[in-house]
Protein backbone atom coordinates (compact mmCIF):
# COMPACT_ATOMS: atom_id res chain seq x y z
CA UNK A 1 0.00 0.00 0.00
CA UNK A 2 1.01 3.59 -0.51
CA UNK A 3 3.32 4.67 2.28
CA UNK A 4 4.85 1.29 3.11
CA UNK A 5 8.19 2.37 1.67
CA UNK A 6 8.25 5.35 3.99
CA UNK A 7 7.66 3.12 7.00
CA UNK A 8 10.53 0.89 5.87
CA UNK A 9 12.76 3.94 5.64
CA UNK A 10 11.83 4.98 9.15
CA UNK A 11 12.70 1.57 10.50
CA UNK A 12 16.07 1.68 8.75
CA UNK A 13 17.04 5.08 10.13
CA UNK A 14 15.85 4.08 13.60
CA UNK A 15 18.10 1.03 13.40
CA UNK A 16 21.01 3.26 12.43
CA UNK A 17 20.27 5.61 15.29
CA UNK A 18 20.04 2.95 17.97
CA UNK A 19 22.81 0.86 16.46
CA UNK A 20 25.29 3.72 16.45
CA UNK A 21 25.12 3.81 20.25
CA UNK A 22 25.94 0.20 21.01
CA UNK A 23 27.42 -1.25 17.84
CA UNK A 24 30.94 0.04 17.12
CA UNK A 25 30.71 -1.56 13.67
CA UNK A 26 28.18 1.10 12.70
CA UNK A 27 29.89 4.14 14.14
CA UNK A 28 32.87 4.07 11.84
CA UNK A 29 34.11 7.62 12.37
CA UNK A 30 37.72 7.80 13.53
CA UNK A 31 37.92 10.96 15.57
CA UNK A 32 41.11 12.44 14.20
CA UNK A 33 43.19 13.99 15.80
CA UNK A 34 42.19 12.23 19.04
CA UNK A 35 42.37 8.89 17.32
CA UNK A 36 44.31 8.00 14.24
CA UNK A 37 43.88 5.39 11.65
CA UNK A 38 46.85 3.09 11.18
CA UNK A 39 48.28 3.90 7.78
CA UNK A 40 48.47 1.03 5.34
CA UNK A 41 51.87 -0.32 4.35
CA UNK A 42 51.62 1.17 0.89
CA UNK A 43 50.71 4.67 1.92
CA UNK A 44 53.13 7.35 0.80
CA UNK A 45 53.31 11.09 0.88
CA UNK A 46 56.64 12.84 0.27
CA UNK A 47 60.17 11.42 -0.05
CA UNK A 48 62.69 11.23 2.79
CA UNK A 49 66.39 10.40 2.90
CA UNK A 50 67.30 7.24 4.78
CA UNK A 51 70.45 7.14 6.90
CA UNK A 52 72.22 4.34 8.69
CA UNK A 53 73.87 4.52 12.07
CA UNK A 54 73.43 7.33 14.55
CA UNK A 55 74.65 10.42 12.76
CA UNK A 56 72.08 11.62 10.25
CA UNK A 57 74.56 13.49 8.09
CA UNK A 58 77.35 10.91 8.09
CA UNK A 59 75.01 7.99 7.65
CA UNK A 60 73.10 9.30 4.62
CA UNK A 61 72.95 6.64 1.97
CA UNK A 62 72.68 9.31 -0.72
CA UNK A 63 75.86 9.71 -2.78
CA UNK A 64 74.65 12.85 -4.60
CA UNK A 65 74.58 11.12 -7.97
CA UNK A 66 71.73 13.46 -8.99
CA UNK A 67 69.79 10.76 -10.81
CA UNK A 68 66.67 11.57 -8.87
CA UNK A 69 67.10 15.27 -9.52
CA UNK A 70 67.16 14.60 -13.26
CA UNK A 71 64.28 12.17 -13.22
CA UNK A 72 61.91 14.08 -10.99
CA UNK A 73 59.08 15.19 -13.33
CA UNK A 74 58.23 18.50 -11.67
CA UNK A 75 61.90 19.08 -10.81
CA UNK A 76 61.46 19.70 -7.17
CA UNK A 77 64.81 18.24 -6.03
CA UNK A 78 67.94 20.36 -5.90
CA UNK A 79 71.28 18.73 -5.13
CA UNK A 80 74.78 20.04 -4.78
CA UNK A 81 77.73 17.69 -4.25
CA UNK A 82 80.05 18.13 -1.29
CA UNK A 83 83.63 18.86 -2.44
CA UNK A 84 86.84 18.70 -0.49
CA UNK A 85 89.45 21.44 -0.39
CA UNK A 86 90.90 20.42 -3.72
CA UNK A 87 87.53 20.49 -5.43
CA UNK A 88 87.22 16.72 -5.67
CA UNK A 89 83.65 15.51 -5.38
CA UNK A 90 82.91 13.59 -2.21
CA UNK A 91 80.13 11.04 -2.34
CA UNK A 92 77.83 13.15 -0.21
CA UNK A 93 75.29 15.91 -0.85
CA UNK A 94 76.21 19.36 0.40
CA UNK A 95 72.71 20.57 -0.34
CA UNK A 96 69.71 18.31 -0.81
CA UNK A 97 66.53 20.36 -1.02
CA UNK A 98 63.09 19.04 -1.80
CA UNK A 99 60.16 21.37 -2.38
CA UNK A 100 57.08 19.51 -1.13
CA UNK A 101 54.81 22.22 -2.46
CA UNK A 102 55.86 21.02 -5.93
CA UNK A 103 56.40 17.32 -5.34
CA UNK A 104 53.55 15.22 -6.69
CA UNK A 105 54.36 12.08 -4.70
CA UNK A 106 54.98 10.06 -7.87
CA UNK A 107 57.74 7.98 -6.27
CA UNK A 108 59.87 8.13 -9.41
CA UNK A 109 62.86 9.36 -7.40
CA UNK A 110 62.55 6.24 -5.25
CA UNK A 111 62.36 3.96 -8.27
CA UNK A 112 65.45 5.39 -9.91
CA UNK A 113 67.76 5.72 -6.92
CA UNK A 114 70.41 2.97 -7.24
CA UNK A 115 71.46 3.31 -3.59
CA UNK A 116 68.09 2.89 -1.80
CA UNK A 117 68.79 6.30 -0.34
CA UNK A 118 65.50 8.04 -0.99
CA UNK A 119 62.21 6.48 0.16
CA UNK A 120 58.65 7.66 0.55
CA UNK A 121 57.64 8.98 3.95
CA UNK A 122 54.09 8.68 5.30
CA UNK A 123 54.00 11.84 7.43
CA UNK A 124 51.12 14.03 6.31
CA UNK A 125 50.78 16.69 9.00
CA UNK A 126 53.06 19.13 7.20
CA UNK A 127 51.02 22.28 7.34
CA UNK A 128 53.00 25.41 8.06
CA UNK A 129 52.39 29.12 8.32
CA UNK A 130 55.21 29.86 5.89
CA UNK A 131 54.35 28.75 2.42
CA UNK A 132 57.83 29.29 0.96
CA UNK A 133 60.46 28.28 3.50
CA UNK A 134 58.16 26.01 5.42
CA UNK A 135 57.56 23.70 2.49
CA UNK A 136 61.15 23.59 1.23
CA UNK A 137 62.77 20.76 3.17
CA UNK A 138 66.55 20.56 3.48
CA UNK A 139 68.63 17.45 4.03
CA UNK A 140 68.44 17.76 7.81
CA UNK A 141 64.67 17.71 7.69
CA UNK A 142 64.60 14.96 5.10
CA UNK A 143 67.00 12.62 6.91
CA UNK A 144 65.20 9.77 8.66
CA UNK A 145 66.82 6.74 10.35
CA UNK A 146 66.52 3.31 8.85
CA UNK A 147 64.62 2.18 11.95
CA UNK A 148 61.90 4.68 11.05
CA UNK A 149 61.80 3.34 7.52
CA UNK A 150 61.40 -0.17 8.93
CA UNK A 151 58.60 1.02 11.13
CA UNK A 152 56.54 2.67 8.39
CA UNK A 153 57.18 0.22 5.52
CA UNK A 154 58.18 -3.08 7.22
CA UNK A 155 57.96 -5.39 4.20
CA UNK A 156 59.72 -3.08 1.79
CA UNK A 157 62.44 -2.21 4.34
CA UNK A 158 63.11 -5.87 5.09
CA UNK A 159 63.64 -6.52 1.39
CA UNK A 160 65.97 -3.53 1.05
CA UNK A 161 67.95 -4.51 4.16
CA UNK A 162 68.36 -8.04 2.86
CA UNK A 163 69.55 -6.84 -0.52
CA UNK A 164 72.00 -4.36 0.96
CA UNK A 165 73.35 -7.00 3.36
CA UNK A 166 73.84 -9.43 0.44
CA UNK A 167 75.63 -6.77 -1.60
CA UNK A 168 77.81 -5.95 1.36
CA UNK A 169 78.67 -9.60 1.92
CA UNK A 170 79.53 -9.96 -1.76
CA UNK A 171 81.71 -6.85 -1.63
CA UNK A 172 83.42 -8.15 1.51
CA UNK A 173 84.09 -11.53 -0.14
CA UNK A 174 85.47 -9.82 -3.23
CA UNK A 175 87.68 -7.62 -1.08
CA UNK A 176 88.91 -10.68 0.76
CA UNK A 177 89.71 -12.40 -2.49
CA UNK A 178 91.50 -9.28 -3.71
CA UNK A 179 93.35 -9.06 -0.43
CA UNK A 180 94.40 -12.70 -0.77
CA UNK A 181 95.70 -12.04 -4.31
CA UNK A 182 97.50 -8.80 -3.66
CA UNK A 183 99.06 -8.02 -0.29
CA UNK A 184 98.11 -4.34 -0.51
CA UNK A 185 94.98 -3.71 1.66
CA UNK A 186 92.03 -2.67 -0.45
CA UNK A 187 89.92 0.19 0.72
CA UNK A 188 86.51 -1.22 1.27
CA UNK A 189 83.78 1.21 0.77
CA UNK A 190 81.22 -0.89 2.46
CA UNK A 191 77.83 0.33 3.28
CA UNK A 192 77.32 -0.05 6.95
CA UNK A 193 73.98 -1.29 8.09
Amino acid at each position, binding site marked *: *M*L*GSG*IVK*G*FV*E*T*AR*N*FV*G*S*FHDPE*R*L*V*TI*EYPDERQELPENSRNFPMLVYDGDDPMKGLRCVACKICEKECPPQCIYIEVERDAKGKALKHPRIFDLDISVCMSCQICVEVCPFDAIKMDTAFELSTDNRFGGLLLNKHQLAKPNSYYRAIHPLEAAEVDERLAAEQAKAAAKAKAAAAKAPAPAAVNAVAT
Partner: protein
Amino acid sequence: MFELFDQLFVNLKHAVVGALPEGWRGLASPLISAAAILGVFASLFALTVLVERKGLGRIQNRPGPNRVGPAGLLQPLADFIKALTKEDIVPVSADKVLHFLAPVVMLAPVLLAYAVLPFGRNMVAVDFDAGLLFFFAAGACVELAVFMAGWSSHNKFSLLGAMRAIAQMISYELPLILATLGVVMLVGSLSLEDIVDSQAGHHWGWLARWWVFTPWGLAAFVIFLIAATAESNRAPFDLPEGEAELVAGHLVEYSGFKYAIFFIAEYLGLFAVSALAITLFLGGWHAPVAGLDWLPSWFWFGVKLAGFIVFFIWVRGTLPRVRVDHLMGFAWKFLLPLVLWNLVVAAVWWYSRGWAFAGAGILRWVGCAAMILIPYSLLGRALYTRHGLGPRTYRLVA
Protein backbone atom coordinates in the same frame (compact mmCIF):
# COMPACT_ATOMS: atom_id res chain seq x y z
CA MET B 1 0.65 20.02 46.03
CA PHE B 2 -0.56 19.28 42.53
CA GLU B 3 -2.22 22.67 42.33
CA LEU B 4 1.06 24.30 43.31
CA PHE B 5 3.08 22.70 40.52
CA ASP B 6 0.33 22.79 37.93
CA GLN B 7 -0.29 26.49 38.38
CA LEU B 8 3.32 27.36 39.24
CA PHE B 9 3.94 29.67 36.31
CA VAL B 10 0.47 31.15 36.34
CA ASN B 11 0.78 32.07 40.04
CA LEU B 12 4.28 33.36 39.50
CA LYS B 13 3.02 35.72 36.85
CA HIS B 14 0.11 36.84 39.01
CA ALA B 15 2.51 37.53 41.87
CA VAL B 16 4.77 39.63 39.68
CA VAL B 17 1.88 41.54 38.14
CA GLY B 18 0.28 42.04 41.56
CA ALA B 19 3.46 43.53 42.95
CA LEU B 20 3.39 46.29 40.35
CA PRO B 21 1.51 49.58 40.85
CA GLU B 22 -2.09 49.57 39.66
CA GLY B 23 -1.56 51.53 36.43
CA TRP B 24 1.19 49.24 35.13
CA ARG B 25 -0.61 45.93 35.45
CA GLY B 26 -2.49 46.09 32.17
CA LEU B 27 0.74 46.59 30.29
CA ALA B 28 2.89 44.20 32.33
CA SER B 29 0.67 41.15 32.01
CA PRO B 30 1.02 40.65 28.24
CA LEU B 31 4.66 41.70 28.32
CA ILE B 32 5.52 39.05 30.87
CA SER B 33 3.69 36.41 28.83
CA ALA B 34 5.51 37.49 25.69
CA ALA B 35 8.88 37.45 27.44
CA ALA B 36 8.23 33.98 28.84
CA ILE B 37 7.19 32.63 25.44
CA LEU B 38 10.18 34.22 23.76
CA GLY B 39 12.63 32.95 26.37
CA VAL B 40 11.32 29.40 26.51
CA PHE B 41 11.02 28.89 22.78
CA ALA B 42 14.28 30.59 21.89
CA SER B 43 16.13 28.25 24.25
CA LEU B 44 14.13 25.36 22.87
CA PHE B 45 15.35 26.40 19.43
CA ALA B 46 18.98 26.25 20.58
CA LEU B 47 18.41 22.86 22.13
CA THR B 48 16.63 21.58 19.05
CA VAL B 49 19.45 22.58 16.74
CA LEU B 50 21.87 20.64 18.89
CA VAL B 51 19.61 17.59 19.18
CA GLU B 52 18.94 17.74 15.46
CA ARG B 53 22.61 17.81 14.53
CA LYS B 54 23.40 15.04 16.99
CA GLY B 55 20.42 12.96 15.96
CA LEU B 56 20.98 13.34 12.24
CA GLY B 57 24.59 12.36 12.87
CA ARG B 58 23.54 9.18 14.62
CA ILE B 59 21.05 8.38 11.88
CA GLN B 60 23.90 8.67 9.40
CA ASN B 61 26.22 6.63 11.64
CA ARG B 62 28.48 9.46 12.69
CA PRO B 63 28.88 11.08 16.11
CA GLY B 64 27.68 14.59 15.26
CA PRO B 65 29.16 17.78 16.70
CA ASN B 66 31.29 16.93 19.74
CA ARG B 67 34.10 19.46 19.96
CA VAL B 68 32.58 22.49 21.73
CA GLY B 69 32.15 21.88 25.44
CA PRO B 70 31.47 18.48 27.00
CA ALA B 71 30.07 16.16 24.30
CA GLY B 72 29.43 19.18 22.08
CA LEU B 73 26.79 20.65 24.38
CA LEU B 74 27.96 24.22 23.84
CA GLN B 75 27.63 23.98 20.07
CA PRO B 76 24.51 26.22 19.95
CA LEU B 77 26.46 28.92 21.79
CA ALA B 78 29.28 28.69 19.28
CA ASP B 79 26.80 28.84 16.40
CA PHE B 80 25.14 31.84 17.98
CA ILE B 81 28.38 33.76 18.37
CA LYS B 82 29.34 32.86 14.82
CA ALA B 83 26.03 34.11 13.43
CA LEU B 84 26.25 37.32 15.44
CA THR B 85 29.79 38.19 14.44
CA LYS B 86 29.53 37.35 10.76
CA GLU B 87 29.58 40.15 8.26
CA ASP B 88 26.13 41.25 7.13
CA ILE B 89 26.25 41.58 3.37
CA VAL B 90 23.53 43.40 1.44
CA PRO B 91 23.80 43.17 -2.35
CA VAL B 92 24.25 46.49 -4.15
CA SER B 93 21.22 45.93 -6.35
CA ALA B 94 19.00 44.74 -3.51
CA ASP B 95 15.99 46.68 -2.31
CA LYS B 96 17.59 47.66 0.98
CA VAL B 97 14.43 48.31 2.98
CA LEU B 98 12.62 45.14 1.97
CA HIS B 99 15.81 43.14 2.34
CA PHE B 100 16.10 44.37 5.89
CA LEU B 101 12.42 43.94 6.72
CA ALA B 102 11.98 40.40 5.41
CA PRO B 103 13.52 38.59 8.40
CA VAL B 104 11.50 40.75 10.79
CA VAL B 105 8.27 40.10 8.92
CA MET B 106 9.16 36.41 9.02
CA LEU B 107 9.72 36.22 12.77
CA ALA B 108 7.02 38.56 14.10
CA PRO B 109 3.90 36.68 12.92
CA VAL B 110 5.36 33.38 14.08
CA LEU B 111 5.70 34.84 17.55
CA LEU B 112 2.19 36.26 17.32
CA ALA B 113 0.86 32.78 16.66
CA TYR B 114 2.14 31.66 20.06
CA ALA B 115 -0.23 34.07 21.77
CA VAL B 116 -3.25 31.82 21.32
CA LEU B 117 -1.66 28.45 22.11
CA PRO B 118 -2.60 26.93 25.48
CA PHE B 119 0.62 25.55 26.99
CA GLY B 120 -1.01 24.28 30.14
CA ARG B 121 -4.07 24.67 32.34
CA ASN B 122 -4.81 28.44 32.36
CA MET B 123 -1.57 29.01 30.48
CA VAL B 124 -2.60 30.89 27.38
CA ALA B 125 -1.47 34.42 26.66
CA VAL B 126 -4.68 35.50 24.92
CA ASP B 127 -7.81 33.37 25.03
CA PHE B 128 -9.30 34.29 21.69
CA ASP B 129 -12.69 33.09 20.57
CA ALA B 130 -11.26 32.75 17.08
CA GLY B 131 -7.85 31.52 18.16
CA LEU B 132 -7.47 28.99 15.36
CA LEU B 133 -8.34 31.57 12.75
CA PHE B 134 -5.85 33.98 14.29
CA PHE B 135 -3.16 31.30 14.22
CA PHE B 136 -3.57 30.68 10.51
CA ALA B 137 -3.91 34.36 9.69
CA ALA B 138 -0.64 35.09 11.45
CA GLY B 139 0.99 32.06 9.87
CA ALA B 140 0.03 33.27 6.40
CA CYS B 141 2.32 36.30 6.83
CA VAL B 142 5.27 33.97 6.52
CA GLU B 143 4.55 33.64 2.82
CA LEU B 144 4.77 37.37 2.45
CA ALA B 145 8.12 37.41 4.22
CA VAL B 146 9.52 34.67 2.04
CA PHE B 147 8.50 36.48 -1.09
CA MET B 148 9.85 39.76 0.24
CA ALA B 149 13.18 38.07 0.85
CA GLY B 150 13.23 36.53 -2.60
CA TRP B 151 12.18 39.65 -4.45
CA SER B 152 14.30 42.17 -2.63
CA SER B 153 17.50 40.17 -3.04
CA HIS B 154 17.46 40.84 -6.79
CA ASN B 155 18.85 37.45 -7.55
CA LYS B 156 17.31 34.86 -9.82
CA PHE B 157 17.92 31.98 -7.43
CA SER B 158 16.25 33.92 -4.64
CA LEU B 159 13.28 34.74 -6.78
CA LEU B 160 12.87 31.20 -8.05
CA GLY B 161 13.18 29.87 -4.52
CA ALA B 162 10.61 32.34 -3.28
CA MET B 163 8.20 31.45 -6.09
CA ARG B 164 8.54 27.82 -5.19
CA ALA B 165 8.03 28.58 -1.54
CA ILE B 166 4.85 30.53 -2.27
CA ALA B 167 3.48 27.83 -4.53
CA GLN B 168 4.24 25.19 -1.94
CA MET B 169 2.89 27.09 1.04
CA ILE B 170 -0.35 28.07 -0.67
CA SER B 171 -0.89 24.52 -1.89
CA TYR B 172 -0.31 22.98 1.50
CA GLU B 173 -2.24 25.60 3.42
CA LEU B 174 -5.43 24.04 2.05
CA PRO B 175 -4.97 20.51 3.44
CA LEU B 176 -3.56 22.03 6.61
CA ILE B 177 -6.63 24.12 7.33
CA LEU B 178 -9.11 21.55 6.05
CA ALA B 179 -7.54 18.95 8.34
CA THR B 180 -8.26 21.11 11.34
CA LEU B 181 -11.81 21.72 10.17
CA GLY B 182 -13.02 18.32 11.35
CA VAL B 183 -12.12 19.19 14.91
CA VAL B 184 -13.76 22.59 14.59
CA MET B 185 -16.93 20.96 13.25
CA LEU B 186 -17.20 18.57 16.15
CA VAL B 187 -16.21 20.98 18.89
CA GLY B 188 -18.21 23.84 17.46
CA SER B 189 -15.66 26.45 18.44
CA LEU B 190 -12.56 28.11 17.07
CA SER B 191 -11.15 28.81 20.51
CA LEU B 192 -8.16 26.61 21.23
CA GLU B 193 -9.07 26.53 24.92
CA ASP B 194 -12.48 25.06 24.07
CA ILE B 195 -10.85 22.54 21.77
CA VAL B 196 -8.58 21.37 24.59
CA ASP B 197 -11.52 21.21 26.99
CA SER B 198 -13.48 19.10 24.51
CA GLN B 199 -10.77 16.43 24.82
CA ALA B 200 -11.02 16.11 28.58
CA GLY B 201 -12.34 12.90 30.10
CA HIS B 202 -11.57 9.28 29.30
CA HIS B 203 -12.77 6.34 27.23
CA TRP B 204 -13.51 3.30 29.39
CA GLY B 205 -12.15 5.16 32.36
CA TRP B 206 -8.50 5.21 31.32
CA LEU B 207 -7.73 6.23 27.72
CA ALA B 208 -7.88 9.99 27.12
CA ARG B 209 -10.60 11.21 24.76
CA TRP B 210 -8.23 12.72 22.23
CA TRP B 211 -9.44 13.32 18.70
CA VAL B 212 -6.50 11.36 17.35
CA PHE B 213 -8.12 8.17 18.68
CA THR B 214 -11.00 8.52 16.24
CA PRO B 215 -10.54 7.29 12.67
CA TRP B 216 -11.16 10.64 11.05
CA GLY B 217 -9.02 12.31 13.74
CA LEU B 218 -6.12 10.02 13.01
CA ALA B 219 -6.38 10.66 9.27
CA ALA B 220 -6.67 14.40 9.82
CA PHE B 221 -3.70 14.26 12.18
CA VAL B 222 -1.50 12.51 9.63
CA ILE B 223 -2.55 14.91 6.86
CA PHE B 224 -2.01 17.83 9.22
CA LEU B 225 1.50 16.58 9.99
CA ILE B 226 2.39 16.25 6.32
CA ALA B 227 1.00 19.66 5.48
CA ALA B 228 2.67 21.19 8.53
CA THR B 229 6.03 19.83 7.43
CA ALA B 230 5.52 21.44 4.06
CA GLU B 231 4.30 24.70 5.59
CA SER B 232 7.38 25.04 7.74
CA ASN B 233 9.73 24.18 4.87
CA ARG B 234 11.11 21.13 6.59
CA ALA B 235 12.67 18.16 4.86
CA PRO B 236 11.42 16.38 2.79
CA PHE B 237 9.55 19.48 1.61
CA ASP B 238 12.48 21.90 1.84
CA LEU B 239 12.43 22.60 -1.89
CA PRO B 240 12.49 26.40 -1.58
CA GLU B 241 16.07 26.08 -0.41
CA GLY B 242 17.02 23.04 -2.46
CA GLU B 243 20.80 23.37 -2.54
CA ALA B 244 21.19 21.27 -5.64
CA GLU B 245 19.20 23.54 -7.92
CA LEU B 246 18.66 26.84 -6.09
CA VAL B 247 21.76 27.32 -3.91
CA ALA B 248 19.67 28.32 -0.89
CA GLY B 249 16.52 29.74 -2.46
CA HIS B 250 15.26 32.94 -0.87
CA LEU B 251 18.14 32.83 1.63
CA VAL B 252 20.93 33.14 -0.95
CA GLU B 253 21.65 36.79 -0.28
CA TYR B 254 21.28 36.63 3.49
CA SER B 255 24.20 36.23 5.82
CA GLY B 256 25.06 36.69 9.45
CA PHE B 257 22.29 37.42 11.87
CA LYS B 258 19.58 38.02 9.29
CA TYR B 259 20.10 34.49 8.08
CA ALA B 260 19.97 33.29 11.68
CA ILE B 261 16.63 35.05 12.14
CA PHE B 262 15.17 33.20 9.18
CA PHE B 263 16.47 30.03 10.70
CA ILE B 264 14.96 30.83 14.10
CA ALA B 265 11.64 31.78 12.52
CA GLU B 266 11.53 28.50 10.63
CA TYR B 267 12.07 26.50 13.80
CA LEU B 268 9.69 28.59 15.87
CA GLY B 269 7.12 28.06 13.13
CA LEU B 270 7.70 24.34 13.41
CA PHE B 271 7.20 24.42 17.17
CA ALA B 272 4.06 26.51 16.81
CA VAL B 273 2.51 24.18 14.29
CA SER B 274 3.47 21.17 16.43
CA ALA B 275 1.86 22.87 19.39
CA LEU B 276 -1.26 23.38 17.30
CA ALA B 277 -1.27 19.69 16.34
CA ILE B 278 -1.00 18.80 20.03
CA THR B 279 -3.85 21.15 20.87
CA LEU B 280 -6.14 19.93 18.12
CA PHE B 281 -5.53 16.21 18.09
CA LEU B 282 -3.43 15.14 21.07
CA GLY B 283 -5.52 16.62 23.84
CA GLY B 284 -3.42 19.72 24.44
CA TRP B 285 -2.05 19.55 27.96
CA HIS B 286 -4.12 16.53 29.04
CA ALA B 287 -2.36 13.37 30.18
CA PRO B 288 -2.62 10.39 27.81
CA VAL B 289 -4.00 7.91 30.37
CA ALA B 290 -6.08 8.46 33.46
CA GLY B 291 -3.45 7.36 36.00
CA LEU B 292 -0.92 9.95 34.90
CA ASP B 293 -2.80 13.20 35.46
CA TRP B 294 -0.97 13.90 38.72
CA LEU B 295 1.86 15.36 36.60
CA PRO B 296 1.53 19.09 35.83
CA SER B 297 -0.28 20.05 32.66
CA TRP B 298 2.64 22.02 31.19
CA PHE B 299 4.82 18.97 31.67
CA TRP B 300 2.55 16.94 29.41
CA PHE B 301 2.55 19.68 26.83
CA GLY B 302 6.35 19.77 26.91
CA VAL B 303 6.62 16.01 26.55
CA LYS B 304 4.35 16.03 23.53
CA LEU B 305 6.23 18.91 21.96
CA ALA B 306 9.53 17.12 22.50
CA GLY B 307 8.01 14.07 20.85
CA PHE B 308 7.07 16.15 17.82
CA ILE B 309 10.54 17.63 17.57
CA VAL B 310 12.14 14.20 17.67
CA PHE B 311 9.70 13.00 15.06
CA PHE B 312 10.47 15.89 12.72
CA ILE B 313 14.19 15.26 13.10
CA TRP B 314 13.60 11.61 12.33
CA VAL B 315 11.63 12.56 9.22
CA ARG B 316 14.42 14.83 8.08
CA GLY B 317 16.96 12.07 8.55
CA THR B 318 14.87 9.56 6.65
CA LEU B 319 13.12 11.05 3.66
CA PRO B 320 14.88 12.53 0.64
CA ARG B 321 13.65 15.79 -0.83
CA VAL B 322 10.68 15.37 -3.17
CA ARG B 323 10.56 16.70 -6.70
CA VAL B 324 8.67 19.90 -7.44
CA ASP B 325 5.95 18.35 -9.61
CA HIS B 326 5.53 15.51 -7.12
CA LEU B 327 5.17 18.04 -4.36
CA MET B 328 2.35 19.85 -6.12
CA GLY B 329 0.71 16.68 -7.35
CA PHE B 330 0.77 15.23 -3.87
CA ALA B 331 -0.97 18.27 -2.39
CA TRP B 332 -3.63 18.77 -5.02
CA LYS B 333 -4.32 15.27 -6.27
CA PHE B 334 -3.89 13.26 -3.12
CA LEU B 335 -4.10 15.26 0.10
CA LEU B 336 -6.87 17.59 -0.95
CA PRO B 337 -9.45 14.95 -2.04
CA LEU B 338 -8.59 12.86 0.97
CA VAL B 339 -8.96 15.66 3.46
CA LEU B 340 -12.28 16.73 1.94
CA TRP B 341 -13.54 13.19 2.16
CA ASN B 342 -12.30 13.08 5.73
CA LEU B 343 -14.72 15.89 6.57
CA VAL B 344 -17.57 13.68 5.37
CA VAL B 345 -16.28 10.89 7.59
CA ALA B 346 -16.14 13.30 10.52
CA ALA B 347 -19.75 14.19 9.86
CA VAL B 348 -20.72 10.52 9.78
CA TRP B 349 -18.88 10.07 13.08
CA TRP B 350 -20.84 12.97 14.54
CA TYR B 351 -24.24 11.75 13.44
CA SER B 352 -23.57 8.21 14.57
CA ARG B 353 -22.81 9.32 18.13
CA GLY B 354 -26.30 8.42 19.27
CA TRP B 355 -26.08 4.76 18.23
CA ALA B 356 -27.02 2.65 21.19
CA PHE B 357 -27.20 -0.98 20.08
CA ALA B 358 -24.76 -3.75 21.04
CA GLY B 359 -21.37 -3.34 19.36
CA ALA B 360 -22.23 0.12 18.11
CA GLY B 361 -18.94 1.59 19.29
CA ILE B 362 -16.87 -0.95 17.40
CA LEU B 363 -19.04 -0.77 14.29
CA ARG B 364 -18.79 3.00 14.29
CA TRP B 365 -15.01 2.92 14.61
CA VAL B 366 -14.42 0.18 12.04
CA GLY B 367 -16.95 1.66 9.63
CA CYS B 368 -15.36 5.09 9.71
CA ALA B 369 -11.85 3.62 9.45
CA ALA B 370 -12.92 1.66 6.36
CA MET B 371 -14.46 4.81 4.90
CA ILE B 372 -11.01 6.38 5.03
CA LEU B 373 -8.74 3.44 4.30
CA ILE B 374 -10.52 2.28 1.17
CA PRO B 375 -10.40 5.62 -0.67
CA TYR B 376 -6.84 6.09 0.56
CA SER B 377 -5.71 2.83 -0.91
CA LEU B 378 -7.70 3.26 -4.14
CA LEU B 379 -6.58 6.83 -4.68
CA GLY B 380 -3.00 5.90 -3.89
CA ARG B 381 -3.03 3.05 -6.36
CA ALA B 382 -4.69 5.09 -9.10
CA LEU B 383 -2.24 7.94 -8.80
CA TYR B 384 0.69 5.59 -8.49
CA THR B 385 -0.07 3.69 -11.67
CA ARG B 386 -1.92 6.13 -13.88
CA HIS B 387 -0.98 9.69 -13.13
CA GLY B 388 2.75 9.56 -13.08
CA LEU B 389 3.24 9.91 -9.36
CA GLY B 390 4.97 6.55 -9.15
CA PRO B 391 8.56 5.79 -10.08
CA ARG B 392 9.37 6.58 -13.68
CA THR B 393 10.78 4.07 -16.07
CA TYR B 394 12.69 5.16 -19.12
CA ARG B 395 12.95 3.27 -22.38
CA LEU B 396 15.46 3.97 -25.07
CA VAL B 397 13.73 4.45 -28.41
CA ALA B 398 15.85 3.09 -31.20
